Protein backbone atom coordinates (compact mmCIF):
# COMPACT_ATOMS: atom_id res chain seq x y z
CA UNK A 1 0.00 0.00 0.00
CA UNK A 2 1.21 3.47 -0.77
CA UNK A 3 1.65 5.96 2.05
CA UNK A 4 -1.18 8.12 0.72
CA UNK A 5 -3.57 5.19 0.62
CA UNK A 6 -2.51 4.07 4.08
CA UNK A 7 -3.18 7.54 5.42
CA UNK A 8 -6.61 7.55 3.82
CA UNK A 9 -7.51 4.20 5.39
CA UNK A 10 -6.33 5.43 8.78
CA UNK A 11 -8.46 8.54 8.48
CA UNK A 12 -11.57 6.60 7.58
CA UNK A 13 -11.06 4.22 10.51
CA UNK A 14 -10.81 7.15 12.91
CA UNK A 15 -13.92 8.71 11.41
CA UNK A 16 -15.83 5.45 11.73
CA UNK A 17 -14.77 5.00 15.35
CA UNK A 18 -15.80 8.57 16.15
CA UNK A 19 -19.25 8.01 14.65
CA UNK A 20 -19.67 4.75 16.57
CA UNK A 21 -18.70 6.60 19.77
CA UNK A 22 -21.47 9.16 19.14
CA UNK A 23 -24.04 6.38 18.72
CA UNK A 24 -22.91 4.73 21.97
CA UNK A 25 -22.98 8.07 23.79
CA UNK A 26 -26.51 8.79 22.55
CA UNK A 27 -27.67 5.52 24.10
CA UNK A 28 -25.59 5.70 27.29
CA UNK A 29 -26.04 9.35 28.28
CA UNK A 30 -29.81 9.12 28.91
CA UNK A 31 -29.12 6.25 31.32
CA UNK A 32 -26.77 8.48 33.30
CA UNK A 33 -28.67 11.74 33.01
CA UNK A 34 -32.30 10.73 33.46
CA UNK A 35 -32.13 9.60 37.08
CA UNK A 36 -35.78 8.72 37.65
CA UNK A 37 -36.23 7.04 34.28
CA UNK A 38 -37.66 3.53 34.28
CA UNK A 39 -36.63 2.92 30.69
CA UNK A 40 -39.63 0.85 29.83
CA UNK A 41 -41.01 1.00 26.33
CA UNK A 42 -42.41 4.27 24.99
CA UNK A 43 -45.33 1.98 24.23
CA UNK A 44 -46.22 1.52 27.90
CA UNK A 45 -46.61 5.27 28.14
CA UNK A 46 -48.77 5.34 25.05
CA UNK A 47 -50.98 2.72 26.60
CA UNK A 48 -51.42 4.91 29.66
CA UNK A 49 -52.22 7.86 27.44
CA UNK A 50 -54.93 5.86 25.68
CA UNK A 51 -56.45 4.96 29.03
CA UNK A 52 -56.43 8.62 30.08
CA UNK A 53 -58.19 9.68 26.91
CA UNK A 54 -60.65 6.83 26.80
CA UNK A 55 -60.86 4.89 30.04
CA UNK A 56 -63.41 2.49 28.60
CA UNK A 57 -61.25 1.26 25.79
CA UNK A 58 -60.36 -2.39 26.05
CA UNK A 59 -57.96 -4.04 23.64
CA UNK A 60 -60.07 -6.32 21.47
CA UNK A 61 -57.39 -8.73 20.38
CA UNK A 62 -54.42 -10.28 22.10
CA UNK A 63 -51.17 -11.64 20.73
CA UNK A 64 -51.57 -15.27 19.67
CA UNK A 65 -48.20 -16.08 21.08
CA UNK A 66 -46.34 -14.26 23.77
CA UNK A 67 -42.81 -14.93 24.97
CA UNK A 68 -43.14 -16.68 28.32
CA UNK A 69 -40.80 -14.34 30.13
CA UNK A 70 -38.52 -11.37 29.73
CA UNK A 71 -35.65 -13.80 29.24
CA UNK A 72 -37.33 -15.60 26.38
CA UNK A 73 -38.29 -12.29 24.83
CA UNK A 74 -34.74 -10.98 24.99
CA UNK A 75 -33.54 -14.25 23.45
CA UNK A 76 -35.84 -13.69 20.49
CA UNK A 77 -34.79 -10.06 20.12
CA UNK A 78 -31.13 -11.06 20.31
CA UNK A 79 -31.79 -13.72 17.71
CA UNK A 80 -33.40 -11.16 15.43
CA UNK A 81 -30.40 -8.85 15.73
CA UNK A 82 -27.96 -11.74 15.28
CA UNK A 83 -29.63 -13.04 12.12
CA UNK A 84 -29.81 -9.54 10.69
CA UNK A 85 -26.21 -8.62 11.36
CA UNK A 86 -25.13 -12.06 10.16
CA UNK A 87 -26.66 -11.36 6.76
CA UNK A 88 -25.39 -7.78 6.59
CA UNK A 89 -21.80 -8.70 7.36
CA UNK A 90 -21.81 -11.84 5.26
CA UNK A 91 -22.76 -9.57 2.36
CA UNK A 92 -20.09 -7.01 3.19
CA UNK A 93 -17.46 -9.72 3.55
CA UNK A 94 -18.47 -11.22 0.22
CA UNK A 95 -18.23 -7.85 -1.53
CA UNK A 96 -14.89 -7.10 0.12
CA UNK A 97 -13.42 -10.44 -0.97
CA UNK A 98 -14.76 -10.00 -4.48
CA UNK A 99 -13.11 -6.61 -4.78
CA UNK A 100 -9.80 -7.95 -3.49
CA UNK A 101 -9.99 -10.86 -5.92
CA UNK A 102 -10.59 -8.50 -8.81
CA UNK A 103 -7.68 -6.30 -7.82
CA UNK A 104 -5.38 -9.31 -7.50
CA UNK A 105 -6.45 -10.54 -10.94
CA UNK A 106 -5.73 -7.13 -12.43
CA UNK A 107 -2.28 -7.05 -10.83
CA UNK A 108 -1.46 -10.46 -12.30
CA UNK A 109 -2.17 -9.24 -15.81
CA UNK A 110 0.07 -6.20 -15.51
Amino acid at each position, binding site marked *: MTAVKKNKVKKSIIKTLALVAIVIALAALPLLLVKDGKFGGSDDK*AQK*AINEINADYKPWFSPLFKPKSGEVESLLFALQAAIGSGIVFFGLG*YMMGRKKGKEAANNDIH
Partner: protein
Amino acid sequence: MSKKKIWMLGLFFMFALLPQTTFAMHIMEGFLPAKWCIAWGVFTIPFVLVGFLSIQKTVKEHPKTKMLLAMAGAFAFVLSALKIPSVTGSCSHPTGVGLGAILFGPTAMSVLGLIVLLFQAILLAHGGLTTLGANTFSMAVVGPLVSFVTYKIVKRANGPQWLAVFLAAALGDILTYTATSIQLALAFPAETGGFMASMVKFMSIFAITQIPLAVSEGILTVLIFNAIKAYGKDELKDLKMFSKEV
Protein backbone atom coordinates in the same frame (compact mmCIF):
# COMPACT_ATOMS: atom_id res chain seq x y z
CA MET B 1 -80.04 -19.31 25.67
CA SER B 2 -79.44 -19.42 21.95
CA LYS B 3 -76.15 -20.64 20.59
CA LYS B 4 -75.37 -17.17 19.32
CA LYS B 5 -75.87 -15.64 22.75
CA ILE B 6 -73.57 -18.20 24.34
CA TRP B 7 -70.95 -17.36 21.78
CA MET B 8 -71.31 -13.66 22.49
CA LEU B 9 -71.08 -14.23 26.21
CA GLY B 10 -68.04 -16.45 25.79
CA LEU B 11 -66.31 -13.93 23.59
CA PHE B 12 -67.15 -11.15 26.04
CA PHE B 13 -65.55 -13.02 28.93
CA MET B 14 -62.61 -14.03 26.82
CA PHE B 15 -61.78 -10.42 26.02
CA ALA B 16 -62.70 -9.12 29.45
CA LEU B 17 -60.36 -11.58 31.12
CA LEU B 18 -57.46 -11.25 28.72
CA PRO B 19 -54.39 -9.88 30.43
CA GLN B 20 -53.55 -6.29 29.62
CA THR B 21 -51.05 -6.35 26.83
CA THR B 22 -47.91 -4.31 27.18
CA PHE B 23 -47.48 -1.71 24.53
CA ALA B 24 -44.60 -1.78 22.11
CA MET B 25 -43.15 1.01 20.04
CA HIS B 26 -45.48 0.00 17.31
CA ILE B 27 -49.19 0.07 17.97
CA MET B 28 -49.92 -2.97 20.12
CA GLU B 29 -52.18 -5.83 19.27
CA GLY B 30 -55.81 -4.90 19.85
CA PHE B 31 -55.07 -1.27 20.66
CA LEU B 32 -56.58 0.18 17.52
CA PRO B 33 -60.34 0.01 16.93
CA ALA B 34 -61.21 -2.44 14.16
CA LYS B 35 -62.33 0.15 11.60
CA TRP B 36 -58.95 1.87 11.80
CA CYS B 37 -57.13 -1.45 11.50
CA ILE B 38 -59.01 -2.13 8.30
CA ALA B 39 -58.58 1.39 6.93
CA TRP B 40 -54.81 1.45 7.42
CA GLY B 41 -54.55 -2.05 6.05
CA VAL B 42 -56.37 -0.99 2.90
CA PHE B 43 -54.17 2.11 2.49
CA THR B 44 -51.09 -0.09 2.79
CA ILE B 45 -52.03 -2.75 0.24
CA PRO B 46 -51.22 -0.77 -2.96
CA PHE B 47 -47.75 0.14 -1.65
CA VAL B 48 -46.94 -3.46 -0.84
CA LEU B 49 -48.17 -4.64 -4.26
CA VAL B 50 -46.21 -2.00 -6.14
CA GLY B 51 -43.21 -2.80 -3.94
CA PHE B 52 -43.48 -6.47 -4.75
CA LEU B 53 -43.48 -5.74 -8.49
CA SER B 54 -40.64 -3.25 -8.11
CA ILE B 55 -38.49 -5.81 -6.27
CA GLN B 56 -39.29 -8.40 -8.92
CA LYS B 57 -38.24 -6.01 -11.67
CA THR B 58 -35.00 -4.96 -9.95
CA VAL B 59 -33.98 -8.53 -9.24
CA LYS B 60 -34.81 -9.65 -12.78
CA GLU B 61 -32.87 -6.83 -14.42
CA HIS B 62 -29.97 -6.93 -12.01
CA PRO B 63 -29.72 -10.37 -10.36
CA LYS B 64 -26.52 -9.20 -8.69
CA THR B 65 -28.45 -6.83 -6.44
CA LYS B 66 -30.17 -9.72 -4.63
CA MET B 67 -27.46 -9.77 -2.00
CA LEU B 68 -27.84 -6.04 -1.42
CA LEU B 69 -31.60 -6.42 -1.11
CA ALA B 70 -31.14 -9.09 1.55
CA MET B 71 -28.69 -6.79 3.33
CA ALA B 72 -31.16 -3.87 3.27
CA GLY B 73 -33.85 -6.10 4.77
CA ALA B 74 -31.42 -7.50 7.33
CA PHE B 75 -30.36 -3.99 8.32
CA ALA B 76 -33.98 -3.14 9.14
CA PHE B 77 -34.16 -6.45 11.01
CA VAL B 78 -31.18 -5.56 13.21
CA LEU B 79 -32.13 -1.98 13.94
CA SER B 80 -35.73 -2.76 14.85
CA ALA B 81 -34.48 -5.33 17.36
CA LEU B 82 -32.43 -2.75 19.25
CA LYS B 83 -34.42 -1.05 21.97
CA ILE B 84 -32.35 1.94 22.95
CA PRO B 85 -32.76 4.15 26.03
CA SER B 86 -33.64 7.75 25.30
CA VAL B 87 -33.78 11.17 26.96
CA THR B 88 -37.41 10.81 28.05
CA GLY B 89 -36.49 7.91 30.31
CA SER B 90 -38.13 5.31 28.13
CA CYS B 91 -36.89 3.07 25.34
CA SER B 92 -37.70 2.84 21.69
CA HIS B 93 -36.07 1.36 18.62
CA PRO B 94 -34.98 2.68 15.23
CA THR B 95 -36.55 1.24 12.09
CA GLY B 96 -33.67 0.84 9.65
CA VAL B 97 -35.85 1.26 6.57
CA GLY B 98 -34.03 4.35 5.27
CA LEU B 99 -31.13 2.42 3.75
CA GLY B 100 -33.34 0.18 1.63
CA ALA B 101 -35.52 3.12 0.57
CA ILE B 102 -32.46 4.98 -0.72
CA LEU B 103 -31.13 1.92 -2.56
CA PHE B 104 -34.25 0.20 -3.85
CA GLY B 105 -36.97 2.86 -3.67
CA PRO B 106 -39.68 3.41 -1.08
CA THR B 107 -42.15 0.71 -2.09
CA ALA B 108 -39.54 -2.07 -2.01
CA MET B 109 -39.11 -1.24 1.66
CA SER B 110 -42.87 -1.54 2.19
CA VAL B 111 -42.49 -5.25 1.45
CA LEU B 112 -39.35 -5.74 3.57
CA GLY B 113 -40.78 -3.66 6.43
CA LEU B 114 -43.94 -5.76 6.37
CA ILE B 115 -41.84 -8.91 6.77
CA VAL B 116 -40.00 -7.45 9.76
CA LEU B 117 -43.26 -6.35 11.40
CA LEU B 118 -44.86 -9.73 10.75
CA PHE B 119 -41.94 -11.50 12.44
CA GLN B 120 -42.17 -9.23 15.48
CA ALA B 121 -45.96 -9.47 15.68
CA ILE B 122 -46.05 -13.25 15.55
CA LEU B 123 -43.00 -14.24 17.58
CA LEU B 124 -42.34 -11.31 19.87
CA ALA B 125 -45.82 -10.00 20.66
CA HIS B 126 -44.38 -6.69 19.53
CA GLY B 127 -46.76 -4.69 17.38
CA GLY B 128 -49.62 -6.95 16.34
CA LEU B 129 -51.53 -8.75 13.62
CA THR B 130 -54.62 -6.57 13.90
CA THR B 131 -52.47 -3.44 13.88
CA LEU B 132 -50.16 -4.78 11.17
CA GLY B 133 -51.75 -2.54 8.53
CA ALA B 134 -51.34 0.61 10.61
CA ASN B 135 -47.80 -0.25 11.65
CA THR B 136 -46.79 -1.16 8.13
CA PHE B 137 -48.23 2.14 6.94
CA SER B 138 -46.15 4.18 9.40
CA MET B 139 -42.90 2.20 9.32
CA ALA B 140 -42.89 0.78 5.80
CA VAL B 141 -44.84 3.35 3.77
CA VAL B 142 -44.42 6.77 5.41
CA GLY B 143 -40.87 6.20 6.69
CA PRO B 144 -39.36 4.96 3.40
CA LEU B 145 -41.23 7.60 1.37
CA VAL B 146 -39.83 10.36 3.57
CA SER B 147 -36.33 8.84 3.36
CA PHE B 148 -36.50 8.50 -0.41
CA VAL B 149 -37.76 12.06 -1.01
CA THR B 150 -35.28 13.53 1.47
CA TYR B 151 -32.38 11.76 -0.21
CA LYS B 152 -33.45 13.00 -3.64
CA ILE B 153 -33.90 16.59 -2.46
CA VAL B 154 -30.50 16.79 -0.76
CA LYS B 155 -28.81 15.18 -3.77
CA ARG B 156 -30.54 17.54 -6.17
CA ALA B 157 -29.37 20.49 -4.08
CA ASN B 158 -25.88 19.10 -4.57
CA GLY B 159 -25.55 18.31 -0.90
CA PRO B 160 -22.86 15.80 0.10
CA GLN B 161 -23.91 12.16 -0.07
CA TRP B 162 -23.30 11.45 3.61
CA LEU B 163 -25.65 14.30 4.53
CA ALA B 164 -28.31 13.02 2.13
CA VAL B 165 -28.09 9.53 3.65
CA PHE B 166 -28.04 10.85 7.22
CA LEU B 167 -31.04 13.15 6.81
CA ALA B 168 -32.97 10.53 4.83
CA ALA B 169 -32.58 7.90 7.55
CA ALA B 170 -33.10 10.26 10.48
CA LEU B 171 -36.19 11.99 9.07
CA GLY B 172 -37.68 8.68 7.95
CA ASP B 173 -37.30 7.46 11.52
CA ILE B 174 -38.90 10.54 13.11
CA LEU B 175 -41.77 10.68 10.63
CA THR B 176 -42.52 6.99 11.20
CA TYR B 177 -43.30 7.71 14.83
CA THR B 178 -45.08 10.94 13.94
CA ALA B 179 -47.33 8.82 11.75
CA THR B 180 -47.89 6.44 14.67
CA SER B 181 -48.91 9.40 16.85
CA ILE B 182 -51.34 10.62 14.18
CA GLN B 183 -52.83 7.15 13.84
CA LEU B 184 -53.40 6.90 17.59
CA ALA B 185 -54.76 10.46 17.83
CA LEU B 186 -57.23 9.78 15.00
CA ALA B 187 -58.47 6.68 16.79
CA PHE B 188 -58.45 8.26 20.25
CA PRO B 189 -59.34 11.96 20.02
CA ALA B 190 -59.40 13.61 23.45
CA GLU B 191 -62.78 14.65 24.86
CA THR B 192 -61.55 18.20 25.22
CA GLY B 193 -59.28 19.38 22.47
CA GLY B 194 -60.06 16.47 20.17
CA PHE B 195 -57.56 15.22 17.66
CA MET B 196 -54.96 17.94 18.26
CA ALA B 197 -54.82 17.42 22.02
CA SER B 198 -54.35 13.68 21.58
CA MET B 199 -51.81 14.27 18.85
CA VAL B 200 -49.70 16.46 21.14
CA LYS B 201 -49.94 13.84 23.86
CA PHE B 202 -48.83 10.93 21.68
CA MET B 203 -46.19 13.01 19.93
CA SER B 204 -44.64 13.90 23.27
CA ILE B 205 -44.36 10.19 24.05
CA PHE B 206 -43.17 8.82 20.73
CA ALA B 207 -41.52 11.62 18.80
CA ILE B 208 -39.35 13.11 21.55
CA THR B 209 -38.11 9.70 22.63
CA GLN B 210 -37.31 9.12 19.01
CA ILE B 211 -35.14 12.19 18.30
CA PRO B 212 -31.81 10.86 19.68
CA LEU B 213 -32.60 7.47 18.16
CA ALA B 214 -33.15 9.09 14.79
CA VAL B 215 -29.69 10.65 15.03
CA SER B 216 -28.25 7.23 15.87
CA GLU B 217 -30.11 5.65 12.98
CA GLY B 218 -28.81 8.37 10.65
CA ILE B 219 -25.21 7.72 11.70
CA LEU B 220 -25.51 3.93 11.49
CA THR B 221 -27.06 4.20 8.03
CA VAL B 222 -24.21 6.45 6.87
CA LEU B 223 -21.68 3.90 8.17
CA ILE B 224 -23.28 0.95 6.40
CA PHE B 225 -23.86 2.99 3.25
CA ASN B 226 -20.18 3.97 3.13
CA ALA B 227 -19.14 0.34 3.55
CA ILE B 228 -21.44 -0.75 0.74
CA LYS B 229 -20.15 2.09 -1.43
CA ALA B 230 -16.55 1.06 -0.82
CA TYR B 231 -17.03 -2.59 -1.80
CA GLY B 232 -20.25 -2.83 -3.78
CA LYS B 233 -19.78 -0.30 -6.55
CA ASP B 234 -21.13 -2.77 -9.16
CA GLU B 235 -24.45 -3.17 -7.39
CA LEU B 236 -24.81 0.55 -6.76
CA LYS B 237 -24.19 1.21 -10.45
CA ASP B 238 -26.92 -1.28 -11.31
CA LEU B 239 -29.23 0.62 -9.01
CA LYS B 240 -28.22 3.86 -10.73
CA MET B 241 -26.88 5.34 -7.52
CA PHE B 242 -24.12 7.03 -9.45
CA SER B 243 -26.28 8.39 -12.25
CA LYS B 244 -24.68 11.80 -11.94
CA GLU B 245 -21.10 10.73 -11.47
CA VAL B 246 -21.01 8.10 -14.23
